[in-house]
């Protein structure tokens, strides 16, 4: 059976997110296998230049409207619902992102179709979509089978290669009318950037990252000491920042910073997907965790099953000795 796939694009500050190309590349491969096509829905205002980047799609559906100038959940939900209802795709792909999380599940309720979240693998066999989702903080994988009748799949960033979706080919763009956005119950007011008084961890080659395993604020001092001697900086996963132990400028992950340092040392970080998104491309990943089953060991190059309170002082000492004049 032909699988016609609709990809919902997202963009921020004038740039398409990398996940859009990941989804487009994957959708194109699946559609090609089954003899179907791929359409990308692009919502915005004055974003024709972004549509031009989506040449791999059979067609870019461009919804241009002043009310879509900044992402607003309600407006995007309304427009996406109209477009999906009209185009009736067999499968819809949405990013499992801050924006996608707002609209994917509501779309499934409005359209009466199933929704599967946290997809990290997707194939089509015998007319059904087979989705592998990462659940329970990455500790379990769940394989779901869906009929190709408009099901919605939320795709985790990093699931598919981004390059596959980027191609220098002229895009076929069809502008669609946008209606019914005149009585919004929510309004975008402004974008707030983190103030730049702290160091920029995206530019720091050595990052010592702490997670829940750090246990208390006092233990951060020991990690600061290691970072200082390794000429790096301390950063953290979400729970540490939520506790107020480190500032938001040091947070790595989906809602924090995306980093690609030479060394990422993950101390007491389990490796939940929303954290991994922010650091998976580090050149060298070393993980220390008391839980031998922690998903972080699945992406680390080197792993140590131990208490960070034992390993960190020993490593600090070893580095100090290595630096000491003979």
């Amino acid at each position, binding site marked *: 059976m032909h699988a016609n796939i609709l990809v919902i694009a997202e963009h921020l500050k004038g740039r398409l997110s990398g996940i859009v190309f990941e989804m487009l590349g994957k959708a194109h491969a699946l559609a090609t296998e089954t003899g179907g096509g791929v359409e990308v829905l692009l919502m915005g205002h004055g974003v024709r230049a972004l549509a031009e980047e989506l040449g791999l799609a059979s067609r870019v559906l461009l919804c241009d409207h002043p009310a879509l100038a900044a992402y607003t959940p309600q407006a995007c939900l309304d427009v996406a619902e109209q477009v999906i209802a009209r185009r009736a795709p067999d499968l819809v792909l949405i990013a499992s992102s801050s924006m996608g999380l707002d609209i994917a599940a509501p779309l*499934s*309720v409005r359209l009466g179709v199933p929704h599967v979240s946290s997809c990290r693998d997707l194939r089509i066999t015998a007319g059904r979509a087979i989705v592998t989702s990462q659940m329970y903080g990455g*500790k379990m994988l*769940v394989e*779901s089978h869906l009929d190709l009748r408009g099901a919605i799949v939320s795709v985790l960033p990093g699931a598919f290669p981004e390059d596959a979706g980027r191609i220098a080919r002229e895009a076929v763009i069809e502008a669609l009318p946008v209606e019914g956005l005149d009585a919004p119950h929510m309004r975008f007011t402004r974008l*707030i950037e983190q103030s730049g008084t702290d160091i920029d961890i995206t530019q720091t080659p050595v990052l010592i990252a702490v997670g829940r395993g750090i246990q208390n604020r006092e233990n951060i001092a020991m990690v600061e000491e290691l970072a200082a001697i390794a000429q790096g900086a301390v950063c953290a996963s979400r729970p540490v920042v939520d*506790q107020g132990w480190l500032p938001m400028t040091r947070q790595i992950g989906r809602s*924090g910073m995306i980093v690609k340092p030479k*060394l990422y040392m993950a101390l007491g970080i389990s490796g939940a997907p929303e954290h991994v998104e922010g650091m998976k491309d580090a050149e060298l990943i070393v993980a220390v965790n008391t839980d031998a089953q922690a998903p972080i060991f699945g992406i680390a190059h*080197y792993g140590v099953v131990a208490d960070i309170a034992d390993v960190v002082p020993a490593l600090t000492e070893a580095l100090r000795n290595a630096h000491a004049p003979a």
Partner: protein
Amino acid sequence: MNIVVLMKQVPDLVEELEVDAGGTLLDRAWLRFITSEYDDHALEQALLLKEQHGGTVRVLALDMGEADEMLFTALAKGADSAVKLSGDFATGIDSHSAAGIYRHALEGASFDLILTGVQAIDDLDGPAGAMLATHLGLPYIGVVSGIDVDTANGEAHVRKEYPGGLLAEFTVDLPAVIGIQAAMQPPRYVPISRIRQTMKTASIDETAAQGERIAGAISVERMYKPERAGSATMLEGSADSIAERLLDILTEHGIGR
């Protein structure tokens, strides 16, 4: 300012998870439950707003895991009422069905705001709060880590997190449903003694969960533990020998010199 908070119990990831004999569900025999951490933040945010604007906080939960303990803890922290929706949740529940139950429980109720965690570790079919908003015809914004309420104008200013440390601010008409990523301060601690005291003096309203169970939309064929593809080289030994080995590895990579 009357706030409803939806809270749920999820498996504690500190414990080892196992798949049951059927191969599609967690083995619940040894499962330990905790409150979903995002829901804990939603409760905290609700309590902060109540402290600021007055009003009430009402907590709703399905009868799963340690629901009683969670609800008494919420009461001890300052919630005004707690409702346990009872039903057959022995094998858990999908979010679509949960949203349908919450819809029945809240249709016709009076509130200004519904707060719940933006997601949970077991939301295979997405977050229930977002779907509830659709059912109730209310606006929804998720991944929110800051809320200010303007009671005079009946609206809230919410800050939604984007990648790269960016925040987007929206003004939302009330009533609305907000998916909380994090409260504006860490969830408060309440001593066990106070929770025990609350168990003696306060009570949980129990009512039967209503609403259709939505089955069959997603057919789960298999649940399994991820293989360690491209897995880490594991270092073993004393802390000192591990430190020496790590030092060599860092040196090989030109780090720390």
